[in-house]
C-alpha cells in the first residue's frame, strides 16, 4: 500500500526538543539570551543582591566615585549619586522597572496589535480598510507628545507609562500580523477548516495563530527593547517614572548636570541600558533565524 517513500519516524517529540540543538549553535541568540537571563535574575533577586537600600540617602558619601576611580571604595562599588544613594543598588532595582515596563507594555500592545492585525488580515474587505486606517492614524501620532499630554492631565506614575506605551506601541504587531495572516488566509487548510464547519474564532485560534506565533515572538522581543528605551526616554524627560523610583532613564537625567565632571553618573546606567537593549534585540534576531521554517541558521 505504501510504495511512497517512507518518512522517518520521529515519535511524539515536541518541536522544542527537536530544534534545541540548532539553538545552541546560534551564537548571537545564545549570547543575547544569556545576558537577558542575567538581567532577569538581577531584577528578581535585587533585594538580595543590593548592598544598600536604593532609597537610603547618605550625605557623607554623596558623589562618591565608583571603585575603579580615585576615591572609590568597595562600600559603594558603582559610587553614590548626588544625595548619596548607592548606585549599584539603584541599578539593580532599575532593572526591575525596565524589564517590568518592557514586559507589561509588550503584553498589552501584543494583545491589541494581534487582535487588530489578525482581524484585518483574515476578514479583509471593510474590516481591513478600517483597521489599516487605524494603523496609519496611530503611526502619525508621536508617542512622546501623547505621553506629555497624558502626564499633564493625570500626573506621572508607573501605571501611566505602561498604559500610554502599551496603548501606542501596537502598530508593529498589527502590521506584521496583518501581512502574515493575509499570506495564509487563502491556504487550502483554512478552506478545509471552513468545510469542516469551523467558526471564525476556531479558524483563527486553531489554524492561523499556530502559524504566526513565530513572527509574534520576534516582534515581541524587538518591541520589549523599544519599550525599555522609551521608558528611559520618558523618565529622562521627567514624564515617565516619578522621581525617587530607581529607573535608569531617571538616573541619566539626574546625572545630566554633572556630565562634564562626573560622567560615570551617566555612563553606568547608560551602559546597562545599552547592554539590555542589545541583548533583547540579539535574542529577537536569533529567534527570527531559528524559527524560520527551513535553514537560515548560522
Amino acid at each position: 500500500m505504501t510504495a511512497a517513500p517512507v518518512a522517518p519516524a520521529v515519535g511524539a517529540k515536541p518541536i522544542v526538543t527537536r530544534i534545541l540543538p540548532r539553538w545552541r549553535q546560534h551564537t548571537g541568540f545564545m549570547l543575547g539570551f544569556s545576558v537577558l537571563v542575567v538581567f532577569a535574575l538581577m531584577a528578581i533577586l535585587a533585594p538580595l543582591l543590593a548592598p544598600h537600600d536604593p532609597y537610603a540617602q547618605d550625605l557623607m558619601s554623596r558623589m562618591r566615585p565608583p571603585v575603579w576611580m580615585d576615591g572609590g571604595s568597595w562600600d559603594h562599588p558603582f559610587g553614590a549619586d548626588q544625595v548619596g544613594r548607592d548606585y549599584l543598588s539603584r541599578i539593580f532595582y532599575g532593572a526591575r522597572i525596565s524589564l517590568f515596563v518592557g514586559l507589561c507594555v509588550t503584553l498589552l500592545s501584543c494583545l491589541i496589535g494581534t487582535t487588530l492585525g489578525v482581524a484585518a488580515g483574515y476578514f479583509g474587505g471593510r474590516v481591513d480598510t478600517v483597521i489599516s486606517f487605524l494603523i496609519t492614524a496611530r503611526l502619525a501620532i508621536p508617542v512622546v507628545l501623547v505621553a506629555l499630554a497624558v502626564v499633564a492631565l493625570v500626573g506621572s506614575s508607573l501605571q501611566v507609562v505602561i498604559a500610554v506605551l502599551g496603548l501606542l506601541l501596537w502598530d508593529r504587531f498589527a502590521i506584521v500580523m496583518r501581512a502574515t495572516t493575509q499570506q495564509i488566509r487563502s491556504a487550502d487548510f483554512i478552506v478545509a477548516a471552513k468545510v469542516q464547519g469551523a467558526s471564525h474564532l476556531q479558524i483563527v485560534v486553531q489554524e492561523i495563530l499556530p502559524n504566526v506565533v513565530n513572527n509574534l515572538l520576534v516582534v515581541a522581543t524587538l518591541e520589549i527593547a523599544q519599550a525599555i528605551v522609551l521608558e528611559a526616554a520618558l523618565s529622562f524627560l521627567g514624564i515617565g517614572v516619578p522621581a525617587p523610583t530607581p529607573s535608569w532613564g531617571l538616573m541619566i537625567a539626574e546625572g545630566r548636570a554633572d556630565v562634564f565632571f562626573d560622567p560615570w553618573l551617566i555612563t553606568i546606567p547608560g551602559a546597562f541600558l545599552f547592554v539590555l537593549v542589545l541583548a533583547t534585540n540579539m535574542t529577537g534576531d536569533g529567534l527570527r533565524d531559528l524559527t524560520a521554517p527551513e535553514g537560515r541558521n548560522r
Partner: protein
Amino acid sequence: MTQSDAPIFEVNAVSQEYQLGSSLFRRRYLRAVDDVSLQLRRGEVLGLVGESGCGKTTLAKIMMGLIQPTAGEVRLNGKRLADVPRLEVASRIQYVFQDPYSALNPRHSVGRIIEQPLRIHGVGAAADRAQKARKLLDVVGLPQRLIDSPPSQLSGGQRQRVVIARALALRPDILVCDEPTSALDVSVQSQILNLLLDLRSEFGLSYIFVSHNLAVVEHMATSVAVMYLGRIVEHAATADIFGNPQHPYTRALLHSVLAPDPGAGIPDLGLGRTVPNPAQLPTGCRFHPRCPVAVPVCSTKEPARGRGERWAECHLVEGSASAAA
C-alpha cells in the same frame, strides 16, 4: 452499485457571475458557471470534465457552499444548502483538495489534523478522538507511526491520504474531489484512485469527481458531465460518453488523449488555435467558433438546454430538443 432514485444532492439552475470592473455606462461580467443543473444519487460517481478555466472548480466550490451562487440553488437531501446549519453540511459533504501540500496545516501533527473535524463537532473525548484518528489511518492505508509526524515529513501521496482520512472523519455521504490526483506522481495517482474506489464501497460514498483527465474519469465515474465555458454541454452515463460521444466538443476531448505511440505526434482536433474567452461569450452556440462541424444556425441560435439523464446541447445531435426545430 445499487442506486436509490431520489437524488441526495442536486444543483438546480446554478449560475455564478463575477464582475470584472465597471465603467460609467456598462458593467462587464464573467459568467463562470451558466445555468448548470446536476443530480447525484446515492452511490453514484459523477465525473465533471472540461479544460482549464471552464468553471469546474467554481462549480465544486458552489457545491460545498463555499461560494454563494448568484442564481439558482444547491439542495442537500431535498433541503436548500443555504438553510442547512453549517455543522450539518460539514457532516454530509466533504472536500478532497487538489493540492495536498497546502491542504494540511504545517504546524499540526497528522493525528491532530485528522481529529480536527471531530474536535470542531465536539465528537467524543480526547482519547476517543485519538482512537478514531488511528482507525482512519488504517482505513486510508497509512502506518500508525505517522500519527505524530508533521505534514512536512510526508510524501505527496501520503498527504493526500491524510486529506482523505480527514474528509472521512465525520462519515460524510458525499465527497467532492477536486482533481485529487493531478498534483501527484503518476505512480501514486492510481493508488489514490483505487483507495477512493475501495472507500466508496466500504462507506457507501457518492463522489463528485472533478478532473481534466479523461482516463481517470472513465476509471472512476458512473456518469459524466462535460463542461465547456460554464455550461454542461453533454451529460450521459460513462459508457455512453466514452463509447458514443454526441457533442463535437466531447469527441474532440476524447481525441485529445495522447496515444502511447511516440510517432503519432499531437493529434489535430480541428478545434483551431483560438482560446475561448469566458468574458466575451460568442453568440449562438458557445462552442461554434471552434466547432469543426458548425453550420450557419450555430452562430445565431443557442441550442436548447439539456435536461434529464442524457443530453447534448448541440443543433446537430439527433434527439436533442433543437435538432427537430
